[in-house]
């Protein structure tokens, strides 16, 4: 691991000031479960680490308001998963959190950091002798001709097919959340749908965050679609693994018909993936197993399989179909 200087800050303003003073080689440290891990792999090489864990203003969880759920960027995954309002009224969010990682990591990992979690692509993590455009822009992508069983079927490019590995952002996408950030140029709010980016020709750019920007909060508009919802996650083992396919489904049912549907999938694409066409196919209809299967297939429209991951097209479709039935049972 490279050497770095280390600073603890107490306010978001101090954090941004420290970053501005330190320059592009600086990184904010929250839970550390991604950053410190990648520093050990020599992928992240910060010259200056700004520890933001002491910023108490960013640690709050506020779910009692009438309009939105507000999570400070430093709220921990384990705590948000167990918030009573989140559990009862937004099961999709609670499940996306407790079905991720382990309780040790969820105790450490912050929501803001989780949004910035980087891919688990083995070529990215391993480095030399394998080419990786995320790790070393312009070097190529070993996954394109490699072992791609776990790689993306949607949203890939000639430069990168690494899967976005997170779960929570998929649920947040289905819930139309927004992300508040602060930075050298002031405060702004990024809709979750615009937060993560597909790789295109620049896989090293993964989000719309600018240098020095710091996530301060994640806000979820309160909505009736939260209750009849689920985050369904299919893995190689039952627990403590990344998704082979996952689906965040939120439904609002009125008179036995779907009034509103939200479908987002994880583990299959280069970013959290919303399926608007599939949502439209549900609206106005009665939910049946046959319809759920059809919608599942629609969700996977445009999927481009590689050499070893074709099975995940059907797996993705079935995951969505099962998730729709689970969500429907909660209406």
């Amino acid at each position, binding site marked *: 691991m490279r050497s*770095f200087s*280390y600073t603890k800050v107490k306010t978001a303003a101090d954090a941004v000031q420290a970053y501005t003073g330190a320059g592009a080689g600086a990184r904010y440290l929250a839970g*550390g*479960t991604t950053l*410190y891990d990648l520093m050990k792999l020599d992928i992240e090489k910060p010259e200056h*680490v700004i*520890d933001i864990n002491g910023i108490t203003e960013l640690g709050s969880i506020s779910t009692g308001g009438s309009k939105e759920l507000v999570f400070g960027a430093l709220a921990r995954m384990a705590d948000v998963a167990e918030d009573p309002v989140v559990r009862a009224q937004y099961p999709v969010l609670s499940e996306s959190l407790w079905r991720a990682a382990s309780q*040790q*990591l969820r*105790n450490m990992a912050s929501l803001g950091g989780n949004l910035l979690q980087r891919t688990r692509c083995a070529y990215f993590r391993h480095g030399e002798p394998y080419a990786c455009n995320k790790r070393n822009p312009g070097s190529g992508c070993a996954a394109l001709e490699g072992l791609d069983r776990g790689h993306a079927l949607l949203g890939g490019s000639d430069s990168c097919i690494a899967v976005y590995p997170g779960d929570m952002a998929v649920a947040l996408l289905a819930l139309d959340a927004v992300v508040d950030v602060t930075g050298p140029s002031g405060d702004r709010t990024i809709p979750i749908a615009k937060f993560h980016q597909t790789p295109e020709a620049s896989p090293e750019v993964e989000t719309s965050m600018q240098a020095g920007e710091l996530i301060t909060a994640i806000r979820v508009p309160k909505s009736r679609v939260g209750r009849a919802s689920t985050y369904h996650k299919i893995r190689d083992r039952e627990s403590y693994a990344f998704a082979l396919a996952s689906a965040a489904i939120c439904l609002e049912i009125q008179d036995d018909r779907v009034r509103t549907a939200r479908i987002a999938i994880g583990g299959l694409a280069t970013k959290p993936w919303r399926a608007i066409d599939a949502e439209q196919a549900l609206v106005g209809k009665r939910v049946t197993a046959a319809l759920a299967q059809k919608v599942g297939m629609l969700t996977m429209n445009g999927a481009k399989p590689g050499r070893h991951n074709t099975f995940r097209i059907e797996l993705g479709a079935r995951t969505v179909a099962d998730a729709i039935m689970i969500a429907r049972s909660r209406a």
Partner: protein
Amino acid sequence: MADRGLTDPRMPGNDDILALSRREFIFATTAAGAAMLLPLGDPEALAQTVATIDGGVTATFRINGTQQQVTLDARTSLLDLLREKMALTGAKKGCDHGQCGACTVHIDGRRVASCLTMALQAADQDVTTIEGIVGDGGTLHPMQQAFIDHDALQCGYCTPGQIMAGIACVREGHASDRNEIREYMSGNLCRCGAYPGIVAAIEDAALKMGRG
């Protein structure tokens, strides 16, 4: 238990300091090594280390109730601080990437992976390791006793992490049945496959700890 007392000089009431166990020997040599801190020999390596620690960062740690000021390289993980500088070798280094759970300790009562925690993140907080859970007079924690009673280990390497995770699992209220225990203990791998015993031990200890 009597056997342990005879071979482990740190057990209460045992004054036979000549019965130096393998672990005691390692502790002694670690302490000697820690006193020197900087590696000798390769001058380039020495220069790099000096530049890195820049005199080091000094912080106060509270580990198992004992407060200590330590100067360390900012890169040091909490796990390496415990094992290499504090001679607390209970927490184990398995994967060093937060994937196996062998390094599990508590910070302010919450279980964490100490390998993915920078030591400086744990400064001024209460760190509890497996060495810190023994009761008055050396009584084993109910979770430790349950692991013995249920034969919940084979090689034992993952056991300190399993026990620390198990205690937290019960305190969190995630030990209400076997399925929940399995889900909330899934971050602790056991390559010997002692899982049935581990689940049974946690179920048993949960009753004795008064929760779950």
